[in-house]
């Protein structure tokens, strides 16, 4: 990784100003905005002479009248008209405007014609196909921007491989156009692919890498890059702060994320981008007041923005007004059908409303937009589980797991599926893995124990239950039913092995729960009666069993020993 601090910041600033000019000339508004934002964050003055020189080249005056006319039409969103004005012009700028206007014309037309129901019913891609033919016949003569539009068209047509090639070409020819990088980022499926791409060695590449790392759930790497940028002088860039906040959000580092978003709000109070992520955060933390405040604030800024709709949707969802939430998500999608989070969130809402088929549609759309959205895959898994199609849900959970290998929820879900399919060995592996990677919801061990019980691998079951009990006690979150079950099993287990002390201790615990009280009493009585007969062989056995317990326990070798220490103590008190 190149060291950013060694770069000539004046050059970077010049680049950014350049990028802004090039992009805004071509009406690539987001690219221009990005460049301007970064540029304004970098407080360095550059020699105006150099800028003048770059700005006033001859190319600018080629077909000046037509291009500027087209640009004004373009600004007024009369895309067809703009495209018509610059048709048949040979210079690259005019050609780009022509193609871009055509593309947007098609895009807006499709949006306007879209039906209210979700899912695009056989939409007609003839125009895009014609554009593809047209662009591919000129492939060799296209400049960086032309290649960008070509890449976008290919991507829309699902010709992913070609799209990647073309977009790489585009960023090589014109590395300062952030839009091209962004489009490329959405097409990258994994780290290997990222490494295999021949990307230009340019400072923008670092930002691209960070962006992709973020999408690939490689948050540390992303944060590192962003931090370097911030330290180099970009600390005022709201873009970078927002990215950092998103990274924290993805890492489930809620506190940090909330802090970052609050900072962002201070820097740029009228910013709407990324506010949907912020609202997710508030939703997860159930910070009702903040979410309500955010929703109202966004609504005041602009009601008809996807982010606003998403925030409001989340707000209603938190208040369990699912129908209203769906309404807002739908509105977001009307505004932009490629808006990922709305699709996923809408899927969740439909799930809440038990409308599985609509949920499936929504999740599928989300995946269409971005294959890496693990939440959508997970959601699909859940819906198919409800539909009792275990193989499907297995597949979807697995996809989600592949995308986020360290999230225990997916692994638990996988295990449950395997359990349903009676493939208990796999299920066992899953639950164990879930436990190893830090079980978020805390059910994995219990489920594992249950499995062992089912397979009558009693020793493992016992150790798993023991560990489960320890875990829950440590966390302080108790599920009465599960705990009582665990104690009951342990009591029976020890009883069957004539480990009276342990059995006694467990049975005592059992007696604390209403469900198991009767059984516990029976065991306790039996132990009492046995005790009175004689206790000679017990200690030896006890050691044995503890030994076997420890050795058989693969889960956390350290834990049983503490148990070891604890039980004897309680033993002493019980008699």
């Amino acid at each position: 990784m190149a060291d950013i601090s060694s770069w000539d910041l004046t050059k970077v600033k010049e680049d950014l100003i350049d990028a802004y000019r090039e992009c805004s000339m071509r009406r690539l508004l987001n690219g221009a905005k990005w460049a301007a934002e970064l540029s304004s964050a970098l407080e360095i003055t550059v020699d105006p002479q150099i800028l003048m020189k770059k700005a006033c080249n001859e190319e600018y005056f080629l077909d000046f009248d037509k291009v500027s006319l087209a640009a004004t039409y373009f600004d007024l969103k009369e895309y067809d008209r703009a495209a018509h004005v610059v048709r048949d012009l040979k210079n690259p700028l005019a050609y780009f405007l022509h193609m871009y206007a055509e593309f947007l014309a098609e895009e807006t037309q499709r949006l306007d014609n879209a039906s209210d129901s979700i899912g695009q019913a056989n939409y007609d891609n003839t125009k895009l196909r014609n554009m593809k033919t047209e662009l591919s016949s000129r492939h060799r003569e296209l400049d960086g921007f032309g290649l960008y539009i070509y890449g976008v068209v290919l991507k829309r047509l699902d010709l992913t491989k070609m799209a990647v090639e073309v977009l790489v070409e585009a960023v090589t020819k014109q590395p300062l156009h952030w839009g091209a990088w962004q489009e490329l980022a959405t097409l990258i499926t994994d780290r290997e692919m990222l490494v295999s791409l021949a990307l230009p060695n340019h400072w923008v590449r670092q930002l691209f890498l960070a962006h992709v790392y973020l999408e690939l759930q490689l948050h540390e790497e992303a944060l590192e890059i962003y931090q370097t940028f911030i330290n180099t002088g970009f600390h005022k860039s709201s873009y970078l702060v927002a990215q950092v906040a998103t990274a924290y959000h993805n890492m489930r580092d809620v506190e940090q994320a909330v802090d970052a978003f609050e900072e962002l709000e201070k820097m740029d109070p009228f910013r709407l981008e990324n506010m949907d992520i912020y609202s997710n955060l508030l939703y997860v933390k159930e910070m009702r007041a903040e979410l309500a405040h955010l929703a109202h604030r966004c609504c005041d800024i602009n009601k008809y923005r996807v982010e606003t709709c998403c925030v409001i949707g989340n707000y209603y969802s938190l208040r369990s007004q699912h129908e209203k939430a769906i309404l807002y998500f739908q509105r977001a999608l009307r505004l932009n059908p490629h808006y990922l989070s709305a699709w996923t969130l809408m899927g969740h809402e439909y799930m809440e409303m038990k409308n599985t088929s609509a949920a499936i549609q929504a999740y599928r759309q989300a995946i269409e937009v971005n294959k890496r959205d693990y939440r959508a895959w997970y959601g699909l898994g859940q819906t198919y589980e409800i539909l009792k199609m275990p193989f499907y849900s297995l597949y979807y959970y697995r996809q989600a797991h592949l995308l986020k290998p360290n999230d225990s929820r997916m692994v638990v879900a996988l295990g449950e599926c395997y359990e349903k399919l009676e493939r208990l060995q796999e299920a066992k592996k899953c639950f164990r893995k879930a436990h190893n990677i830090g079980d978020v919801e805390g059910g994995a061990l219990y489920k594992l124990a249950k499995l062992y019980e089912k397979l009558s691998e009693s020793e493992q079951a016992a150790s798993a239950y023991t560990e489960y009990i320890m875990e829950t006690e440590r966390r302080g979150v108790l599920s009465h039913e599960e705990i009582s079950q665990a104690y009951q099993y342990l009591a029976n287990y020890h009883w069957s092995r004539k480990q009276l002390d342990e059995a006694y201790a467990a049975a005592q615990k059992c007696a604390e729960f209403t469900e198991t009280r009767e059984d516990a009493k029976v065991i306790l009585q039996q132990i009492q009666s046995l005790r009175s007969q004689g206790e000679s062989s017990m200690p030896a056995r006890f050691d044995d069993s503890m030994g076997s317990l420890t050795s058989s326990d693969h889960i956390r070798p350290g834990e049983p020993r503490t148990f070891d220490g604890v039980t004897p103590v309680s033993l002493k008190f019980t008699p």
Partner: protein
Amino acid sequence: MAGESGCQVPESQTKGKLNLDRLKEIVKKYIDKHHYESALFWADKIVSLSGGAVEDIYWYAQTLYHTGQYHRAATLLCSRKLDRHYAACRFLAAKCHFECKEWQEALNILDMAEVSLTKPSFLQSSINQLSMDADDSLPIRGIESSISLLRGRIYEAMDNRGLAADCFRRALQQDVYCFEAFDLLVSHHMMSAQEEQDLLKTLPLVAQCPEDEMELVRFLYQNRLKKYDKPGTHSIPQSLSPLLENVDVVVNLAERRYYNCEFQKCHKITSGVLSKDPYNSRCLPLHVAVLVELKKPNALFYLGHKLVDFYPNKPVSWFAVGCYYLLTKNFEPARRYLSKATTLEKTFGPAWLAYGHSFAADNEHDQAMAAYFTASQIMKGCHLPVLYIGLEYGLTSNAKLAERFFTLAQSIAPDDPFVLHEMGVIAFQNHEWVEAERYFKEALSRIQSVGYQHMPEKWEALLNNLGHVSRKLKKYEEALEYHRQAELLCPQNPSTYSAIAYIHALTGNNSLAVDFFHKALGLRRDDAFSTTMLGHVIEALMSEVPPIVGDDDSDSLNTSASVVLPPFRPLSFSQADTDDSSLAAHPGDNSSMMAIEEVEMDG
């Protein structure tokens, strides 16, 4: 005729008391100026003044003809038996009857003198005529070809197409500049491509043209010849490059583009032509067809309206209206207007084919076939009606008959990739994989020989079919490659995706298979084959057992066969559309829809 006679006038002189020459001059001048009534008045007087000279009577008849008084003209000529002795008068009299649609009478008049005409050798008769010409100063030179042409048109009107074609051919032999005969032969599809080429070769160009014009005539005729029997290009010789801009040549180019399935380019050309020459009768049918192909109902609607307003008596106007309704899937009115077009001019082939399509698109196979049969009788030299009949038989699962008609079509147009493709489809349905592959590959090589920069999207189905057949032959790599090409050609087609997925499933590449089935289902949710397969593949993938074995495999194969159909059917239809020139492409589209539905049901 008038013009021809005009140039001969000065030679004639018969001096009377009055200077009749001046009056005759005036008559001809009025004819040139379309003041027929005045011409008639003076011609009548000249006849009286000259005491009924043959020449004057001829001109009197001529003016009667021009004023639409056909019977009067015929009676005038016949009552004096002029038609027996003078070829020009005979021709005029017959023409008058022809105008009145009295075919038999016209034929009788022509037949009466046929004997005397054919007896002397060609050379002698022309000498005779020259002498007669000098005597009578009647516009006689080259009248034999006119007579042959008229005879041909009479025969054609009497539905005797074989004789008609012979007559046209004779007319052309007699006068190679007689474009009308050539045009009728070509535009009414009276000869197969081979026969057309032969005719062109045997034309007595050397005898009749000056050397410098030979190339011109040959090029212009060659340029008009059949374009739909095989994809190809045609270049213009260097010396004739000024003709590049000529509307006829440009339209021919557009037509070629149309048959090469380059619809966008064709549309560009035809729109250009029509903007300069809005009612170019040759360009219009082509433009209508290409509008249908590109699915521009609005443009077609407007064009139809304008045409019907300006030319309510031309079949192409109603053809455009019919095509509009066909495109918007209103089959009832489509049929009504198309049949109106065919009644206006029975030989208007495109309307017949479109009429057939209007039934075919509606699944009315029998009626569609009836229409196509009529078309095939009218357009003997065109393989399209036969091809469509074959298609209809194929759709009604009558593979044997379908094959017979395809073979017939192939004998007419041996190089047409569409025919080859259809034969491949039939072979495929008969499970003759090797045979099918051969046909498909041949079709593909025909297409590639054109040397497109980009292959037209129409051929996506061919590539997919090649993929299917390669899969059947267990050449999985090849099959994948074909499907990928198809995907490139026409992205986001669910059937392509399911085909790719199926191959991945067969080669045990389950995770990719699942991916592609998902893609296919994302685009077409109710695709039963993909749904079932996805279930199997996911199960296989999840249990990491080798994919689909035994029963499962054969099962899925069957299903796949039905899946295979959709690409074929649409193609076949659409191909049909493509082929026949002016007739509409849209039925193809409809049919493709039908095919897809069918598949779904099968699945």
